[in-house]
Each structure stands twice: as C-alpha cells, then as structure tokens.
C-alpha cells in the first residue's frame, strides 16, 4: 500500500516570514502554510473565507520592487515569497448615531476633512486585495456623489491595507462605513412591502396563526409541511389575509 505522499509526491517551496525561510508544500494558502510551518494564529485570522478582512498580507519577490497584497486565507504561496502579516490597521473613528447622520455629502467631508488631501496616486486601489477602487470612491465623495461611493465600496472588507499605503493618511474604511450608513438611511428608498409587513406583524395580525401552530404536536406540523411541499397548499388557519 502506497502512502498518499508517495502516490502524489509533494512539491515544496520556500517562503520567508519575519526574515526566516520555511519550506512549505506548494498549493497551500499563506495562512495554512504558516500554520504548517508551526505558527498558530491567535490574531489576524477570522473567517478564513476571504470575507472578514482580518488577515491582510503584503509580500514581495526577490528582484522585484512591486509590493503585492492579498488575504492570507485566499492567497496561495509561491516560491520566494517574502511575507508580512498585517494584523490590525489603526483607524479610530467615532460612530455617529443614526439620528446624527445628515444627507449632505459635505457631512462626510466634514467628519473626514483629510479626504481633501487625496492626490489620486492610486496607491489605495493598488493595495486592495478585493480588487475594489477606493480612490474612485474617495473622489466620488469629494464631488458629492455618495451613492456612487457606496456602490463602489459595498464589498469592502475593511482590511485597512489601502489606508496603510495612503500618503494622505485617509481612513478609507471608516469613511466608507459612514457613507454606507448615510446612503442607507437617506438615499435608498425603503421597500414598501417590508414596511407594510412589519406594521402587520406589529398589529398582531399573525399572532393567532402562530399561537395555533406552536401549540400543535410536532406530528401535525409535519403533516402540514409535507402537504405543502406536495401540493403547495396550506391549511385554512395559516392563510392569513
């Protein structure tokens, strides 16, 4: 019986972390490779799924000046990678209450006047591991287009890499979070159907149906469920009009 490592021989590559070289299997993510090398992440690791922004990395290759960025949990190791983990980017902000949020774009600029220091160097967009364009969003805010800024930054995971690279010291994801809140509160129309349904629920319209359902034995509930899945029909008491 051959072991899996004989049937599929492992290819090892060398990565560098904190100045030390480590031989790790090719094909692992940076996070897994560092764990393979013996490190345990107590900080700078979160969802491991490319979504939470806890594990940004910057890395370079020998002979190449370019700074490359990524998320440790999403980036595969390559031979010769010199890696630096970025655990936490300081971005202190006071979070305004919902009632304080004003619709004017100038409100965002007032709270973050440093965005007027933007020189359009594009360092932020080059640093985004998600391929977003923070520079375009900041510029949109300067010219008063909050909706565009909100759209451009909806998928921001607040890893902080753009702010680290910014020569104007802009606090990008703090700005984007504020913009998102302002746009959500003041610019996006509410779904009328949701508002209507919430009012109905609060008026107690569905209370009786729920009480009946919750007081039934499980076997009865199961019967209702199976009938619905087969025919799409619900019993009378659940068809609340």
């Amino acid at each position, binding site marked *: 019986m051959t072991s899996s490592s004989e049937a599929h021989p492992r290819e090892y590559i060398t990565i560098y972390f904190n100045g030390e070289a480590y031989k790790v299997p090719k094909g692992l993510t940076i996070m897994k490779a560092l764990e393979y090398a013996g490190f345990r992440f107590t900080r700078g690791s979160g969802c491991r799924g490319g979504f939470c922004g806890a594990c940004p990395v910057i890395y370079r290759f020998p002979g190449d000046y370019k700074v490359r960025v990524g998320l440790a949990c999403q980036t595969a190791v390559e031979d010769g990678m010199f890696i630096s983990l970025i655990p936490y980017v300081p971005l202190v902000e006071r979070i305004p209450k919902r009632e304080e949020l004003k619709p*004017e774009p*100038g409100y965002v*600029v*007032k709270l973050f*006047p*440093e965005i*007027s*220091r933007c020189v359009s160097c594009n360092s932020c967009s080059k640093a985004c591991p998600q391929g977003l364009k923070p520079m375009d969003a900041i510029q949109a805010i*300067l*010219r008063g287009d909050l909706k565009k800024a909100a759209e451009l930054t909806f998928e921001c995971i607040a890893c902080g890499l753009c702010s680290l690279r910014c020569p104007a010291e802009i606090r990008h994801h703090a700005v984007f979070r504020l913009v998102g809140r302002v746009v959500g509160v003041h610019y996006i129309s509410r779904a009328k159907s949701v508002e209507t349904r919430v009012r109905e629920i609060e008026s107690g319209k569905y209370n009786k149906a729920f009480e009946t359902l919750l007081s039934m034995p499980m076997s009865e509930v199961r019967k209702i469920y199976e009938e619905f899945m087969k025919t799409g029909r619900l019993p009378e008491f659940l068809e609340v009009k």
Partner: protein
Amino acid sequence: MARLVLSPRELREYIREHTGREVTACMHCGTCSAVCPVVNFMDMHPAALVKAVQRSAIDLGNLKVIWACISCMTCVDKCPRDVAPGLVIETLRQLALRNGIEPRTYSQMPIDETTPSILLVLYSRKGTG
C-alpha cells in the same frame, strides 16, 4: 511648535535645488512686499524674509509668513530679479511640513457641511504635510 533652525547656506542651497532660483539675486527693492495682498498678516514681509534667508538662520517652527501666504504668485510675477519670493515661501513651507510642523489641525477650523471642496483641498495642500 517644534523648532527647525536652518542656516542661510542650507536655505540657499535648498531653494536653489528645488526652485532653481537664487536668493542672492535679491536687491531689496521691496516690490514683492508692495504687491502682496496679505502682507499685513505676516510677521516678516516677503522682502524681509528673502533678506533674512540671505543673512541669518531662520527657525521654521516660528515663522508665520509661510502660513499666511496664499500663493497668489503676484510677487513671483513682479520680481525684477526672478528671485520668486513666493516660491521661496513655498519651499520653506514644504520644509516645515515635511518636518512635522503644521500650523493647526482641521478641528480648529470652521468646517461644516457647506464648506466647498476647493477650500478644503487648498488648505490641505498649504497647511498639512
């Protein structure tokens, strides 16, 4: 504010390297000060500043003229010797900013929702490093 004292020679070389102008060419005619629209708000008017750069050490941490100047460039256009006092002031301002000397913070200014972008952008260029 922090102190940043530079000798005439250092200043002269800095200005020459970065603006291409020679402060030694200044003949103290005073035209720059005469046309300056904010001269009343300066601790050293432009002609006096150029003279000081020529002759004595200057503490950039203690110099108000570099923050009062609005870069209207009238003095640069009018100088008969191409000394460009306005660019001298810019150079000193840049030196100060690059050494962490800033006149004030955003929170000390009356910024509100109606403050035009252009005001903030111009102030950011002149007063933040």
